[in-house]
């Protein structure tokens, strides 16, 4: 493709079969089902909308308090409160379909079969353009009792098994979302790739905890929560870079992306697309500014296509 300096750069990316008109989606759980933010900007300008984790049955989530602000970050223990698959299909999908924005449906199940059923039914209903399997939610376990590797994606064999089962249930692009609470992110990432995942999503939140000195009680009712926000960005960039060294499938990078430069950092580290998470809470239209900023960056540095910078950190 030839471009003249005045052409706008090409932002389109293809992530494991999902075409996105730009590399920016939203992080699951930080953007509702899109409608909440359509009051601030037209969400159809996004590369895709990633939904809050969907479960087969509605989930009430954890008791409050569920949020604690931390230095440059946020601890949450929502506990996957969500409307459940049926209500998602009936109430949330029509809006997103009317918007004609690609849907990455994030799913959570108590077993590989539940994930598979969710994927199958979402595909049947035409209610997703890609499936993101959340194998890494830190907030569905009782922290008072948990021990050892409790998240599916802390166990490479489990990642492989879950991925295979979900893979066999759907032809939609399948993304697997991993936890950063591992020794070496390359291992679960490779396990997902080898079992049929079309992309991996890095990173989910890091396990964290906060205690109120005045009451001497944990600040979260669930004791432990997941840490997100700019505080964790260096950790996320490192994991994306690590994984990009060994993966053939693309990566959706996330963790503390606040501005376009942060998104560019992830792209350079090796992410093909990025997700804006907690920053949407602070600035509901952050994703729009980031899309625009990536385009400006490419122009400023003389690139005609966003793919030209993916993984192009200069060592």
């Amino acid at each position: 493709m030839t471009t003249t300096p005045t052409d706008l750069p090409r932002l389109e990316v293809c992530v494991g079969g999902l075409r996105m008109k730009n590399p920016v989606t939203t992080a699951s759980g930080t953007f509702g089902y899109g409608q909440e933010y359509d009051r601030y900007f037209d969400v159809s300008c996004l590369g895709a909308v990633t939904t809050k984790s969907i479960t087969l049955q509605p989930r009430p989530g954890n008791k409050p308090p569920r949020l604690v602000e931390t230095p440059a970050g946020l601890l949450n223990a929502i506990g996957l409160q969500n409307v459940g698959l049926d209500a998602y299909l009936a109430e949330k999908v029509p809006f997103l379909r009317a918007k004609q924005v690609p849907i990455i449906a994030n799913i959570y199940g108590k077993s590989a079969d539940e994930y598979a059923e969710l994927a199958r039914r979402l595909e049947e209903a035409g209610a997703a353009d890609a499936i993101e399997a959340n194998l890494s939610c830190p907030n569905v376990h009782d922290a008072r009792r948990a021990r050892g590797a409790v998240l599916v994606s802390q166990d490479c064999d489990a990642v492989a098994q879950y991925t295979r089962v979900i893979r066999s249930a759907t032809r939609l692009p399948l993304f697997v979302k991993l936890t950063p609470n591992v020794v070496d992110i390359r291992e679960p990432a490779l396990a997902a790739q080898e079992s049929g995942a079309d992309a991996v999503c890095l990173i989910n939140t890091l396990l964290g905890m906060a205690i109120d000195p005045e009451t001497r009680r944990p600040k979260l009712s669930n004791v432990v929560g997941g840490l997100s926000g700019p505080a964790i960005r260096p950790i996320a960039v490192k994991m994306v870079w690590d994984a990009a060294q060994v993966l053939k499938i693309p990566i959706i990078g996330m963790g503390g992306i606040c501005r376009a430069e942060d998104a560019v950092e992830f792209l350079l580290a090796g992410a093909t697309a990025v997700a804006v998470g907690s920053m949407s809470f602070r600035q509901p239209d952050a994703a729009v500014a980031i899309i625009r900023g990536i385009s400006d960056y490419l122009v400023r540095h003389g690139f005609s296509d966003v793919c030209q910078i993916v993984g192009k950190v200069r060592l």
Partner: protein
Amino acid sequence: MTEEVFVCSPSIREQRFLLECAVVSNDPVAPSHYRMRLHGPEIAAAAVCGQFCMLEVSKTLQPFLRRPMCFERIHPPTFDVLYKVEGEGTRLLSQFLPGQRISVQGPLGKGFPICSGVRRHILVAGGIGVAAMPALAEELVRRFAAVPEVVLAARTRDDVINEAFFRELGCHVQCATDDGSWGHRGLATDLLEQLKPEAQDCVYACGPMPMMRAVAALTAASGAMCFVSLEAQMACGDGACLGCVVQAKEEREGERMVRVCLDGPVFDARVIDWEAQDDNDAD
């Protein structure tokens, strides 16, 4: 009566703005309490009493989240927020100078329902809860030429805010202080009890959790309507993060949790599961 309650609730306003507003003034009104007047024509025009906004207290990423503040007064093109310095965010807020700009997201949430046919409107505010009341009082006066009765509770005389304002508006005002330095020595609920709210009356309350629990119990017993304005730790203010929930008494649309930011912050007191509320959340 449940239907009635929901009928008179205002519909969710879908209009939301994300605007840089100019600080008109930002002055201390009591020890560690400030009032900030903001110029924000669109927000002021759209806001109703009891709703709130989210303020970006710093351009740096610390604090990371916006701070929720209810509209104390809504006088387009301006609106006021009254706040108490609690921590870092409100301390930063107190340092804004007239002419500076601050990013405001709002109006958010459901405000106070303005019901017709109410005999007495009784406003009960504890501590910084008084921030929610002036806009409501003005609205009641404007709509019904009603003269609300107001109960203001504070720790001590210096912390009693807006008393003169309510009197000038024509309200009947009673005060309570913990130390008896002004008005009744004791609790807001002592005074509310003396007012003997009845079935035709409507009580509006905002204050610490124990006060609101007591107000809810008292009004439930008397059959008066009661609306409370709740607080919770918030991230998005828009119903997206599911962080700000409080437990409801019954399932509503399959959910036991209601979101303070979207379903509230004003709730019919009968909706809330008061036993489940944690006193440590509010001060």
